[in-house]
């Protein structure tokens, strides 16, 4: 009886380990493959007789040198960073006051407007890109980084307002009431009291706005046509190809460099991000 129980327990543990192993390999393999490809010499990479899983010749930094020295990669990184900072600034400036006003000042309507603004997050770029391409042209922003700086807040603001509303709801009203009794106006209470204690929520918004900027593909592909003005997300998969020739070594190195920082940042703030999606379904 006891032996049977222990056998079952052992079987359960084996199934558990096997499951984790299967998913880790299935989901993580492309990244392992990026690492291997990034540091392999070309004669090794393009020899079908070689075992592709290991280095058959000494690893090389040649692909990285090519990537940083002879492509627009550094420029794309700079563009992404610049667009990211601008979009974060616009998003914070508009979303923080809006989220506060919708949680505190406007009563029953606040909640409804909040839900309405969240629903706009469900309207996909692939439905809007055609009219937006005309609006962008009308504004004289075609083929400019400014096109995406103007357009991206249209999806980062809704998500940020939604996330921040959850934060502001958890701040007790009495705190601001007390401050207002002490002579601060409502807006001063917001600036001097609410914002400082919501810094962690605001930081979450900064991180997610930034990662959304690095992940976006459709708008950047639509509005920006020259390679020099691109972001990493479009530049790497579209413009790192010369004619029909893929420089797989450099390409995979670029993928790795673009993917890892976002991945690490995102992972640190994951729990708050999930809270944004599951509000109402999980307490």
């Amino acid at each position, binding site marked *: 009886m006891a032996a049977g129980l222990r056998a079952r327990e052992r079987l359960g543990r084996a199934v558990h380990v096997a*499951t984790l192993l299967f998913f880790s390999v299935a989901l993580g393999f492309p990244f392992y493959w990026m690492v291997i490809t990034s540091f392999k010499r070309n004669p090794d990479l393009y020899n079908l007789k070689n075992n592709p899983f290991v280095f058959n010749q000494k690893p090389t930094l040649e692909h990285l040198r090519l990537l940083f020295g002879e492509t627009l990669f550094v420029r794309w990184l700079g563009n992404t960073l610049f667009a990211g900072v601008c979009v974060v600034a616009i998003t914070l400036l508009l979303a923080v006051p809006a989220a506060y006003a919708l949680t505190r000042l406007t009563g029953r309507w606040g909640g409804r407007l909040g839900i309405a*603004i969240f629903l706009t997050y469900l309207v996909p770029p*692939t439905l809007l890109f055609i009219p937006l391409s*005309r609006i962008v042209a009308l504004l004289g922003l075609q083929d400019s980084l400014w096109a995406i700086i103007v357009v991206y807040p249209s999806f980062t603001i809704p998500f940020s307002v939604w996330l921040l509303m959850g934060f502001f709801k958890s701040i007790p009203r009495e705190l601001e009431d007390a401050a207002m009794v002490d002579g601060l106006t409502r807006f001063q209470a917001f600036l001097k009291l609410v914002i400082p204690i919501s810094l962690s929520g605001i930081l979450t918004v900064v991180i997610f706005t930034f990662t959304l900027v690095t992940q976006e*593909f459709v708008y950047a592909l639509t509005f920006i046509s020259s390679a020099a003005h691109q972001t990493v997300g479009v530049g790497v*998969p579209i413009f790192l190809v010369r004619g029909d020739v893929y420089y797989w070594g450099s390409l995979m190195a670029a993928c790795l460099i673009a993917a890892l920082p976002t*991945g690490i940042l995102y992972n640190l703030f994951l729990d708050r991000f999930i809270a944004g999606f599951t509000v109402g379904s999980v307490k």
Partner: protein
Amino acid sequence: MSALGRQRWLGPAMFLPAILYVVALVGVPFVLAFLYSVGDVKVGSVGYHFVGLSNFASVLQNPTFRRALSNSFVFTVSSQVLVLVGANILALALKNAFPGRRFVRFLILLPWVAPVSIGSIGWKWILDSLYSVVNWVLIRLHLVNAFSPPMYLGEPRLAMISVILVHTWHMLPFATVIILAGWTAIPRDIPEAAAVDGARFFRRLFQIELPMMLPIINVAVLFGVIFTFTDMTVVYILTRGGPYDTTQVLPSLAFFTGILGSDLAEGAAISLFLVPLLVIVAWLMLRSAHRAEVT
């Protein structure tokens, strides 16, 4: 009194800029998409003539469009079924603490957090027609012919399967973490009571725990459906809709027609076919949010 008076404009002053921004860049183009679809707008054209439903008529007669429409459903349904099954199993495996759990979580999250265009180009290399590592393994295992190995992105059926699997790869972590959040939120005492009563693992899972998880699984599915049905990135990078437009989905076809083909009106008409499903999903979300408010 004056404080109250000030408050009355303070609220709108704080939320109107955000709302106007979103209305200008989501609401206005949304309406324009409808107008374009019943007009004759091309890139560089001036003026606007109402042409009724002729764009829709011409789109519906196009076999490529009909293929894209059915592909969109095949793409969404099959990848979401795979995601749902995979995410539930994976969430179950990650539920309880074990050494290295944080690292495993980081690893399995990567496909979702890395830009999807970057992940897709990684797969394009893995599925390369000449240097595919998948074929290297299969040839060594004598499962495929070394002289005519499968072209994963070059044969219609295989290309569709590849697109579906890569999208599943991308979406699986998202559903997993949401379901995982659900596991930590359900009250422990009921399943534990059932365990004391002698209910076995699978019975507990299917009769008690999964039903309790249903609302959160709903959230994962609804977002998953939206993100999949409206995505064109995986298709665009892996196959460009090819071979011979056999892997086109609605969003990618709208892009090729409206942006690259400069026919804004017809592109808008194609992308409007996304709307009915979006409306249904939004309605379902509101209903479940409302229910959560009531209880």
